[in-house]
């Protein structure tokens, strides 16, 4: 864990956020098991943990494609839209085990 740059390992790009990430994931896991699975989802979980972690990510995430996911609030919205539109979440969470042809839609984008 020196200052030396590891041979282009962008993998470690977000390690400055490791602590905030752990705090967030712990909080999330607790919320998931104590609230979400019991159907209690009126509150946004772990808001301050999430904001801090997310701010750190947007500062340190190097990969441009990943960054887009972080910035785009629409990832979630577009998949929700897709769902209300055609009854399935195709684009991002395509769950159809039987219609397994995931490749066309992506290159078309």
């Amino acid at each position, binding site marked *: 864990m020196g200052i030396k740059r590891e041979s282009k390992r962008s993998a470690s790009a977000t390690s400055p956020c490791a602590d905030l990430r752990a705090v967030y994931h712990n909080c999330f896991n607790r919320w998931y098991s104590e609230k979400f699975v019991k159907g209690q989802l009126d509150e946004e979980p772990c808001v301050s943990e999430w904001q801090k972690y997310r701010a750190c*990510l947007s500062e340190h995430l190097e990969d441009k494609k990943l960054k887009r996911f972080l910035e785009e609030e629409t990832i979630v919205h577009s998949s929700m839209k897709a769902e209300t539109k055609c009854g399935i979440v195709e684009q991002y*969470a395509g*769950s159809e085990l039987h219609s397994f042809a995931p490749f066309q839609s992506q290159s078309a984008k």
Partner: protein
Amino acid sequence: MVRAYSQEYTYKHPWERVTCASWRKFTDPENKRTLSHILEVDTLNRKVDPESGKLYTTRAITIHAPGPWFIRKIVGQDICHCVESTVVDAWSQSMQLTTRNISLQKFIEVVEKIRYDPHPDNPNGWTICRQETSIRIKPLSALASMAEKVEQRCAERFVQNSVKGREVMERICKYLEAESSGLTI
């Protein structure tokens, strides 16, 4: 050109516990050694929709996937970024994860879909996990001539890793079970 395979597995734990374990699989530090191919997991986005009872999450998963030397030479890196999109439906009790690679896309496309549902034979006690993976070498890529071999190798790796993943899942489920019974005693 596409290699696809599917697997099914039954966890003898309730859906709530198994899906908790799924969230923890990559993020609990004690699994790092078993799942050493997973380098980083970051949550990029999340959304709770109280109207529909759904949770949407997008995570970045960084995988260490070293191939044989000739592949490394062509591809030039052995780190691969993937994006995992998850939808969990708390009302109907289903969890669906879709993971695809976003780096190395000009060479290969891998899509992995996992679903966790209450097991029809024992909906309150067991969970069925269905997994489908498809691997496709891009036809015009530098790997095309050896596509079959690479796909095969890739598929083998996936199978190995999913066995490890199951072991970890079972371990976390046991741990969660002990924890919950500890709390109720």
